[in-house]
């Protein structure tokens, strides 16, 4: 399959994407001198407030750069498509966003990322910046619950950005921000399905693929193996399969309050997400789980991959609800109109 992408030189995809973002939203975002792969809030560093740094491979917009904003992350850097950013870029971001109150690293649990962020945090400590880390690890299909720390992070990290970002914005200290980030991540569970693969521009060939008429349940956002390959199921069946794994995992129980995120991996249209949510809502209602807030759209993608994921975050106390409901703004999530 030929590449159906609007790009120039495949080697320039990452840099030109970032250049475009910066030109589109100069009031909200700025570069760090000398780094073509990092963005920070225009007002960073915010003195006395905890900075939140994130990052990961390119190709997942609005992840990661899109979560830099008021009430969200303070800075982010990205690597090549589907590859980790380097510890140098992470260190640059760390220094640029530290307002004296320390920095939280909040990103997905992939070994290239964790090792680079760990290395950056060691270098940051040398520079006198305190760093704490929370890893997105919400994909229930990637390891059994007993090995939860091996699980990979997918779209559920959005709840981490929102909740930790609101806590940092409020002026809570690093320990407190870290602790709500952990709480958000710990209480979030996700599962995805893939209906097609995607092509890494620099490679020019499909990074992974899903056979015509088939779908892969639990496939990761870089084509990591799922739990089951099946013929294409209906939306209702997919919602059922997802919630059958998600709900018992935490577990979510009758009487719980939750936030729900129905995420497109790229090519899957909003119409399909709402059809999926239509069933998910019914299942949750039947189980006595109250939905406090729903997000539907592209929150963490894999370029033009077809597929979707559902993430559910249990809101275990009033503080979580308050932080989730606090205002937030990123021009990549809500760039739409004036404010």
């Amino acid at each position, binding site marked *: 399959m030929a590449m159906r992408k609007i790009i120039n030189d495949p080697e320039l995809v990452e840099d030109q994407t970032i250049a475009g973002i910066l030109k589109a939203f100069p009031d909200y975002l700025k570069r760090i001198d000398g780094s073509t792969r990092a963005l920070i809030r225009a007002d960073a560093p915010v003195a006395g407030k905890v900075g939140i740094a994130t990052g990961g491979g390119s190709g997942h917009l609005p992840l990661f750069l899109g979560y830099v904003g008021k009430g969200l992350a303070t800075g982010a850097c990205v690597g090549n498509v589907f*590859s980790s950013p*380097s510890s140098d870029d992470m260190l640059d971001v760390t220094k640029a966003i530290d307002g004296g109150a320390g920095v939280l690293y909040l990103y997905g649990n*992939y070994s290239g990322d964790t090792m*680079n962020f760990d*290395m950056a945090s060691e270098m940051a400590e040398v520079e006198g910046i305190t760093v704490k880390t929370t890893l997105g690890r919400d994909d229930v299909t990637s*390891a059994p619950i007993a090995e939860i720390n091996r699980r990979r992070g997918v779209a559920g990290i959005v709840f981490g950005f929102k909740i930790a970002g609101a806590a940092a914005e409020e002026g809570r200290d690093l320990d407190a921000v870290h602790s709500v980030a952990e709480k958000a991540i710990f209480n979030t569970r996700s599962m995805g399905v893939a209906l097609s693969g995607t092509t890494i521009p620099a*490679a020019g060939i499909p990074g992974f693929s899903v056979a015509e008429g088939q779908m892969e349940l639990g496939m*990761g956002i870089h084509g990591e193996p799922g739990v089951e390959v099946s013929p294409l199921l209906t939306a209702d069946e997919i919602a059922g399969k997802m919630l059958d794994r998600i709900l018992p995992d935490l577990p979510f129980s009758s009487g719980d309050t939750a936030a729900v995120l129905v995420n497109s991996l790229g090519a899957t249209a909003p119409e399909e997400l709402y059809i999926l949510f239509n069933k998910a809502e019914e299942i949750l209602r039947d189980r006595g789980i109250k939905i406090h807030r729903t997000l539907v759209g592209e929150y963490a993608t894999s370029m033009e991959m077809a597929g979707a994921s559902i993430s559910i975050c249990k809101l275990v106390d009033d503080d979580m609800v308050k932080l989730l409901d606090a205002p937030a703004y990123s021009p990549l999530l809500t760039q739409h109109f004036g404010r």
Partner: protein
Amino acid sequence: MTDEVLGIFKAISDEVVPQAEILRDLDAKIGDGDLGITITRGMEAVMSVSRDLQGTPASNQLARSGMAFNRAAASTFGVLFATAMMRGGAVVKDREDVGAADIAAIGRAALQGLMDRGKAKIGDKTLLDALSPAIEAFDEAHTSGKSLKEATDAAVDACQAGTTATIEMQSRVSRAGWLGERSIGVQDPGATAVLFMLQAAQSWVNANT
């Protein structure tokens, strides 16, 4: 030892980059298929800082080359490579007189660095399973009075055996770990990359000693 480190990196670039496709294919089977491009871009970066490093201490050459690799090709392999070079280099920090006698110590420090960074154990089906036996074999040969060439040959043989042994292992960490039992049957790509690198070092030793 003045610019031997740079010579060995040149040998690695010359010999391993042409084998990138093999690494890509192995990584595509149990990882994400980027190890070929990682080695290519990483070694390209190492080569391009090489000239500036000429005449500087071996510790600096190791650390700077490792950092250049990861900056250009950040990834699991990239950061592990950088860590190994920085931690290995630290053993001989700023010394001008680094020689064959230091190699085992550098190797062990590098290995410890990899274990600290990656938190994997021997037997988890990683590059540790290729590197660890190589360092032990080198050390044993060297302490028992073997020549650099002989010790290197011993290291490469042990590395080969360790790499082959990864085929039957089940991955317990990182990306391949998500495959569970399906990771059995494929030789670990990172271990294979380490083997190719040691084989390139062996060629350099054969040509230069």
